[in-house]
């Protein structure tokens, strides 16, 4: 690997900017995502910052079972993000539909709509799990490029 690619990879690992998207979640997971950004857990020490526009974000942190109403919106938001981009499915609903699985109004899981890089189960997920997931995603990114 050339030194330029190494520097770019390093910068990507050290500065993941997040975008939060609620795909019909009950708000439990969303509160926990916000929790992970509070001073107690302090995601900023890994360089993660919550951004509010898809153009600035690297990681789409999506929660909820993905209602049919939200499908075209999450697709559009995903396409608005600049490459390289990753998706974190946060919560049991986002991973597989959870208790809403099979319901007429949901598509059961974000991976039915857009590619997902990492699944974080839990109902709701703990903030530690989100942090652990973020670290593992970055680790996998580092390992896959070697």
């Amino acid at each position, binding site marked *: 690997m050339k030194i330029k690619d190494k520097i770019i990879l390093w910068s990507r690992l050290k500065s993941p900017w997040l975008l939060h998207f609620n795909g019909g979640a009950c708000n439990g997971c969303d509160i926990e995502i916000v929790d992970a950004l509070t001073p107690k857990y302090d995601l900023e020490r890994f360089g993660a910052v919550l951004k*509010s526009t898809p153009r*600035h974000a690297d990681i789409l942190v999506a929660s909820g079972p993905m209602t049919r109403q939200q499908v075209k919106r999450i697709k559009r938001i995903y396409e608005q993000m*600049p490459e390289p981009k990753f998706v974190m499915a946060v919560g049991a609903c986002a991973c597989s539909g959870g208790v809403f699985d099979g319901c007429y109004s949901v598509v059961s899981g974000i991976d039915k709509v857009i590619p997902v890089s990492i699944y974080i189960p839990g109902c709701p997920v703990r903030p530690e799990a989100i942090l652990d997931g973020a670290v593992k995603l970055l680790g996998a990114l580092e390992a896959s490029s070697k």
Partner: protein
Amino acid sequence: MTIDPILLALIYILIFPGFIFLTVYGLFLQWFDRKISAVMQNRVGPPWYQALADIIKLLSKEVIIPDACDTVMFKILPYFAIAAVVTAALLLPIWTDALCSFQGDLVVVIYLLTIPTVTFFLAGWSSTSPYATIGSMRVLTQLFAYEVPMMLSLIGPAILAGTWNISEIAGFFTAHKPYMLAQIPAFFVALMALQGKLERVPFDIPHAKNEIVGGQFTEYSGRLLAFFYLAVDMEMVVGAGLINAIFLGATLGTAGILGAVIFLAKTLAIVFLLTLTKVLMGRVRIDQMVRFCWQILAPLSMAQILFDIFLKFRLG
């Protein structure tokens, strides 16, 4: 052996204290600001290389240019912002006298520092997205609020020193240090106006992220966004340097390494005050911001000018 003066000027413009120094010190100040506010909020905060990693990552990302936007304007505006800020830095005394210094360079610096704000407005306007448009209108509204108090607060010391030259004002305050104490109200007005110019809390109304997404930079991504962020960081250095030169006597008559150390120490202190303001306060509404600037800051700086005129007559 003599060094070619043109080469020396090029080194001044490109390396120290020009482009490269501004980049490095601007990124350092961004980290310093984030770290200090993290410590004040009782958390760990980002590591020292954070600002550098952010910039490199943004530089390596894809640049998306929306179909609806004005492509040429959208692409060239970040470079205009950076160029204006770097040019303003050349007129400030940083480690010794400025590269070029003439009567009226104070006015030139003030207007050069207005150009980045105007490019922010045009950036939001030419992206044509609703959030960016609202953000850019707020940029302009805010510009009309803080620009006048800022200019008035810088006029006071200029009247007292009897010159429009930044280096001569700094020289005056170096020779008459007690007069710095008489400028404290104007100093605070300038700090608050700088906070508004840099669009930081409590005046981060143009890109208030829980109201209007990303404000004027909503549609910017990748390299172009990186240059805008870099311009904001550099503007912080130049703004702190300007306040340092006008109110705190710049290098205090020293030159060389000692002068640079004094510059760094005093700008760090100014940025610390800015960070303190940021952490202590929440965001205000745009009408509250305009009212604060016109009803408190502007009269305060006018009173300071009046006081300076009387002091000047007293001195003879």
